[in-house]
């Protein structure tokens, strides 16, 4: 009886699927699909995982590892504990080059954001030749740092550069570009702004094109003038782009290297030397790989903290 009942029950299960049965079946089908998904994900992800593992994660791990070693490329690494970290906190050059880097960043980033925003709004409102002007301004970003650096070096040559010749025509005395720490830093900042302006302008332009025109219509009906429209409609609408631009700009400026190397070589008397220049000098020229790794990690921490602060401040401001 019991067997018959069981068989009957079994028939019922076969013929009338229960919720439990449906779940099991879908789990089996799902599992097969999961295997297919797995394969697909594997194929899609493999190249990028390999790329990142080789060129990002492995070097980062190796960098952290080398902080605890004295390594010079030619001999096996020797464990030295925390000596590199101790040296880092007592190195007067580190402080100087970090200050130079932060100065460039603090001056350049706000200037760059404001200028590129102004230029992008100007280009956005153009009714003729918008594409051509946009391309011309963006083209500075396509110039390599070496070409840009050498060109600026000639422009700022105190004796026969175009900039001083122009100032002379205006009745202004020669400016000691490249031979005075303040003006050399100013020249480097101008070079950075010239190079990045086109890139950030394009990002702002993309954001401006996405602002709903109805918002402007509504603001106009409410009696807002152009300036009010800009501050109360445009700025809030493109805030995500501004956050992105500010983070990218800060990261770029904290890694300021090639432009300074070509334009001033870190001079005069190391007044424009940046943290990355110092790190490369230590790592390559002095073969002091362990200490250069320590500086590299410190720079990573600074960039990470700066980005986090920016994100949090923006969020708090939005709230």
């Amino acid at each position: 009886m019991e067997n018959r009942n069981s068989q009957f029950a079994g028939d019922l299960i076969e013929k009338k699927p229960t919720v439990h049965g449906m779940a099991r079946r879908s789990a089996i089908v799902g599992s097969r699909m999961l295997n297919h998904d797995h394969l697909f994900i594997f194929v899609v992800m493999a190249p990028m995982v390999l790329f990142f593992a080789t060129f990002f994660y492995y070097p980062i791990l190796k960098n952290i590892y080398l902080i605890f070693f004295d390594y010079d490329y030619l001999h096996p690494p020797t464990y030295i504990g925390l000596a590199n970290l101790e040296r880092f906190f007592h190195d007067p050059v580190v402080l100087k080059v970090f200050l130079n880097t932060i100065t460039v960043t603090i001056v350049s980033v706000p200037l760059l954001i404001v200028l590129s925003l102004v230029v992008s709004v100007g280009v956005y409102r153009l009714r003729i030749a918008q594409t051509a002007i946009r391309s011309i301004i963006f083209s500075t970003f396509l110039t390599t740092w070496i070409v840009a650096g050498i060109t600026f070096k000639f422009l700022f040559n105190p004796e026969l550069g175009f900039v001083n010749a122009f100032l002379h025509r205006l009745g202004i005395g020669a400016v000691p570009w490249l031979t005075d720490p303040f003006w050399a830093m100013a020249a480097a900042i101008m070079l950075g702004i010239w190079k990045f302006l086109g890139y950030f302008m394009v990002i702002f332009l993309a954001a401006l094109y996405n602002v709903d025109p109805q918002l402007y219509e509504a603001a106009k009906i409410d009696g807002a003038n152009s300036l009010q429209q800009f501050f109360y409609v445009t700025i809030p609408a493109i805030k995500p782009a501004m956050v992105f631009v500010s983070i990218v700009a800060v990261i770029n400026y904290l890694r300021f290297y090639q432009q300074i190397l070509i334009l001033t070589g870190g001079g005069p008397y190391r007044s424009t030397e940046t943290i990355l220049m110092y790190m490369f000098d230590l790592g390559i020229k002095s073969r002091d790989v362990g200490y250069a790794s320590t500086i590299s990690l410190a720079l990573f921490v600074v960039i990470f903290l700066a980005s986090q602060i920016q994100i949090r401040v923006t969020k708090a401001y939005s709230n």
Partner: protein
Amino acid sequence: MIKTRMVALVLALMLLTWGVLWAGGGQEPTANEDGGFTLRIALSGVGQFEAQIAAFEKLNPKANVEVIDVPWGVEAGRDLRERQLLMISSGDIPDIGAMIWGKEFFREGVIMDLTDDIKKWEEFDGFTAGMLERMTYNNRIYAATIYPCAVMLHYNKDILAQIGRAEPPKTMAELADIGAKIDAAGVRAPNGNKVYAMVFEGGNWHTDCFFWANGGEQMTKDYSKTLIDSPESIGAFRWMQNMVKNGYAPKPDGTYDQLWLNNQVAFFAVGAWEEKPSRDAGLNFGAVPIPVGQTGKNYASMGGTELAIFKASTHKQEAMEFMRLFYRKDLQLTAVTEGKTTLPISKPLFDDPDFQDYWTSQNNLDYYMAQKKQWESTKYNFLEAPFVYPEASKIYASALERVLVKLEDPEKIMKEAAEVINKGIAQKMNVKK
């Protein structure tokens, strides 16, 4: 569950990658069963090596010369040195390397001692004292210098003519007098800009000739201590600073030869590599040995590149054969006449009729005879690329800028710089011991 599988997948891929990289590393075999072999050379500017490579492959039909051509880099061959360091650390070591950091590599034991081999060369007598100083460490020869070139005093004949002078100065005092005359006459360049007597651009390559002439030295004989703060050195730095203070020379701004090429400077202490750009710029110029200082002597930095053989090479004899080709007269003449280089490598060739005929045809025999004369008094520029405590070059360059740009007291600045350099060298030497 899915997350766990994905993490496992990613980790497996990472391990696989590193495994493949690990297994794929190391050096490729450079010899074949049929007697053929590959000679690997890490250099910069393969154009200067083409004739020798072709000649070597002609002499060794089974040989294949593989060139790893790397840009020289912004300062002291930085990019090429970086590549060689990476090749050494990864075990992918070439046979021959072109370098100016041979003393560093020899001291570290990565290149061969070639003393016994090179001393047997019949070309050995053609090496000048300056060249030998470049290729020697602790009395052992570790390399062969190629493309040597000394700094000399280039002068602008048109500017001198404007102050009624035809001859360039023979002493540093005379040079300063000319500076005063140019300044007093208010000489202007064709572009209307002020003309200076001298320019101290290009780092210590272009300044140290003056403190050597004044009796100063960069380093002690064993390179264990710098002497840039000696009274003789300070005297020369003061002389250079006064040239700037008096308006006879501009503050160096890193634009190198621009003032010279624009007829805005009467004298420029620079190597023979400046001959072609000067000619292309249409300058009416000449060159003479560096003016003498209070010692009555003159000295200039001896440049060039060294060819060295890495210890890991299994083709020492073939590499030596290749290096020696650079001293073959026909190849040197081809390199000069085809514009691959400006100078012969062997000093006796300055007097060779074929070379002299070529220079005469180019109207610059006097220029090259001045170079020959300067080769008799050259020094090794240790502070260009110090093999102990490399930061020394930057510290010294920065001190030079403070003297010539910020116009600070040379004695104070050089003493400070010397203290830091000497401390750094002592620390590095102690570590080595």
